[in-house]
């Protein structure tokens, strides 16, 4: 919706939104907790409220929404085929913005040994059942993964009267926001076990318990640390995977680290006229940044349709020491100020980021703390960016 609004406001008013759900808003609709919008709107909203802000903006502009409609394919020529209860739709677009979000990594992908009872949910699935469908999913809970959804669900399950026995995190640090660890675990007395995983799942019909165990530095289970926790519910919050089936179907080049498309500073992919933004491009931790990214894509798509995107001075932006990825992966050196986003490879204390092109320093940034769970943003000033004489690279040094 943010991309559609931005495209509209940039003068391209013939915009349609296609969404598979009956209501727009995506995963925000089930995120009834607060904490959304602080950066973007200067207000603290719940997920549905944040979505509603954009829904109203969309309505104000009279942008057409095809809800309850699933896109089946997007071609490189920008023919979008979709289906809904009225039939099969084919739309010829001049530009397409992909904003399909993520799915959650499933139990199967983790290869957790044991039986296959009911009561093992992805955290988001449980969230939907509780918050949207209005059903309780269990009474005694273990959560694997300390990403934000796992943390939020630890609190949510506690509020519904369930006992959350443990949150296990296979890594030696949490992937979630610090504020969520404090507000969702510490405030509720829920233990967080780091370097710990679920080693076995038990129960033939409903889940009856899990065996948890510590892992060594190769993430292998230490058998002597195995212990059994009786529970009827296991929530998995073990990572998000950008849902790029349509993207791949359109033959768009992908970044193996982000799991999303390779894009330029306008968020255009390597297929001309197809853009991507939000969690389908890279997993974000704050929705505010999702909206920012969507606006970039929306404006970029509008420029593209108007034939204004003539940049031929793009260089690659690559990750150096201590940096897992950089996005966008291609940057126009003759454009305006450009923000680049990145994640670090491990938790660090005080660090300095240096953005260089060859020996030219384009930007530096000092952060008091950097963790893989929090996305970093560095602004590249237009005048400095012009000095780039080749690919730019971001390195991290510990201070």
């Amino acid at each position, binding site marked *: 919706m943010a991309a559609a609004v931005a495209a509209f406001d940039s003068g391209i008013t013939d915009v349609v939104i296609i969404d598979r759900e009956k209501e727009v808003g995506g995963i925000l609709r089930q995120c009834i907790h607060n904490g959304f919008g602080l950066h973007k709107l200067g207000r603290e909203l719940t997920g549905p409220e944040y979505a509603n802000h954009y829904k109203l903006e969309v309505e104000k502009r009279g942008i057409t929404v095809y809800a309850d409609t699933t896109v089946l394919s997007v071609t490189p020529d920008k023919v979008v085929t979709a289906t809904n209860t009225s039939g099969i739709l084919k739309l010829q677009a001049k530009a397409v913005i992909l904003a399909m979000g993520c799915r959650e990594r499933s139990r*199967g992908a983790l290869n957790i040994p044991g039986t296959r009872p009911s009561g093992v949910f992805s955290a988001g699935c449980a969230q939907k059942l509780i918050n949207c469908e209005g059903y309780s999913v269990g009474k005694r809970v273990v959560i694997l993964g300390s990403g934000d959804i796992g943390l939020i669900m630890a609190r949510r399950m506690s509020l519904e009267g369930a006992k959350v026995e443990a949150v296990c995190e296979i890594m030696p640090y949490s992937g979630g926001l610090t504020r969520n660890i404090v507000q969702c675990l510490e405030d509720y007395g829920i233990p967080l076990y780091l370097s710990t995983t679920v080693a076995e799942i038990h129960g033939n019909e409903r889940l009856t318990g899990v065996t948890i165990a510590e892992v060594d530095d190769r993430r292998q289970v230490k058998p002597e640390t195995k212990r059994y926790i009786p529970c009827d519910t296991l929530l998995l919050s073990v990572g998000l995977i950008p849902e790029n089936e349509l993207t791949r179907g359109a033959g768009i080049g992908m970044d193996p680290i982000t799991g999303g498309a390779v894009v330029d500073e306008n968020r255009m992919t390597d297929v001309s006229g197809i853009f991507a933004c939000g969690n389908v491009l890279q997993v974000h931790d704050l929705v505010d940044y999702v909206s920012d990214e969507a606006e970039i894509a929306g404006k970029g798509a509008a420029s593209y349709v108007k034939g204004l995107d003539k940049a031929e001075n793009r260089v690659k932006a690559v990750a150096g020491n201590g940096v897992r990825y950089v996005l966008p992966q291609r940057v126009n050196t003759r454009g305006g100020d450009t923000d680049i986003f990145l994640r670090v490879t491990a938790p660090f204390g005080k660090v300095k980021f240096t953005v260089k092109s060859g020996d030219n320093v384009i930007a530096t940034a000092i952060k008091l703390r950097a963790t893989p769970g929090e996305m970093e943003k560095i602004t590249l000033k237009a005048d400095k960016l012009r000095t780039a004489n080749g690919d730019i690279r971001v390195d991290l040094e510990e201070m």
Partner: protein
Amino acid sequence: MSNVKYTVAVIGGGVIGGMISRELTRYGVKIVILEKGNDVALGASKANSGIVHGGYDPEPNTLKAKLNTLGVEKLFKAASELNVPIKRNGSLVCAFSEEEKAHLDLLYKRGFENGITALEIIDGDKARELEENLSESVVAALWVKNAGIVCPYELTVASIGNAMDNGAELITDFEVVGINKDGVFEIVSADGRKVFADYVVNCAGAYSGKIASLVGDDSIEIIPRAGEYLLLDKAEGGRVKHTIFQVPTKDGKGILVSPTVDGNLLTGPTASVVASPDNKETTADGMNKVNTLALKSVPTVNFRNVITSFTGVRASNKGGDFVIGESAACKNFINVAAIDSPGLTCCVSIAEYVMDVLKGVGLKLELSADFNGTRNDPHFFRKMNDDEKNDFIKSNPTYGRIVCRCEGISEGEMRYAVKTNPPASDLDGVKRRTRAGMGRCQGGFCSPTVMKLIAEERGIGKEQVTKNGGGSYIVTEKL
């Protein structure tokens, strides 16, 4: 149901029970299928390799050899009548040493003795010509050209569905705990229900020994052997075209790497004797073994693309051959037991063989004019082109609403699965019939909606919808 007398009671709703039931309805016989679970295809028929074996493996002159040789083409024919996807992709049995290569010669000879001619021994290079991702260490392979792949649970659902369409009755949640015989059989379930029949066919899979013992027949000793599998995303489905075996050992046909008819890649199984057929756990060791041995055949398989793991339990026995015939301890009680590999391949030939057994003990079998062996294709919708879909959606709007995004399954297809013989009653039942929840998200997105559809179609509350029957509830209460 109570006090209705059937001519034949088939105990066990697996692929063998399904095909036997379908054959019996071909002759218009009044039958009932008694299934312990809440759905069909819950035992070995759910979790096996899904291979149509060429017939080189069974020892000559065994029942397995005879029925395998007969069974391949019969299965292809039945699957096509039942609209079950089946594919003749051929298989390669790979040898990694000169010693193993010698074993291929043995298999070739054995196949020849069994009447299988679609066999050829090829060298490693030729094998890699057929399969570019095959390991460089493969020195030779037995190319089994008549072999194929089929979806075993879909075949089971379809055979039982077709039998039901032709008059068979299916009673689920009927765990047989007692069989009394006073002229007719009185079959008693764990919850006290009774069914009467003139003949009993025992095809209870891993539990067939237990069922036989209810009529005083202790001759069947099932040794449950668990096999663990890893199923990979469709992104890996094109890794091989043929089913890739390794030279078999005494424990079984070893770890295979095979495409599935649905386009995934299947690896496994292990083989370990377990105490009980209920033991369907996967283990870290088992999964590691599958991973390592599959890579031995096809080193490029990307195991990061695993979408699920599961364990199936084979109903093996000491003798190593199928046990099919009237029980020595009880007249008119037919055992169809110890049906392990290549049982799936033989399901139709076994069913026909059982008809002969039943005739031999006095059951009159005359072809019924009313029998229709064709089952409507439950996947008609996904096979349509966009124009056809568009037309169909106009009069059937729910087919336009995609519920399972990973596999592209519509609400209409799911509702159809809950209404069509044998009706799906839970999430796993819908999954096996439609593939909803079988994709890369494993139901994370669609299961709340599938639950709702099942509750609506069955007129029950969502709290009563289960994953796979019994106490496998999903939500506990309305908040």
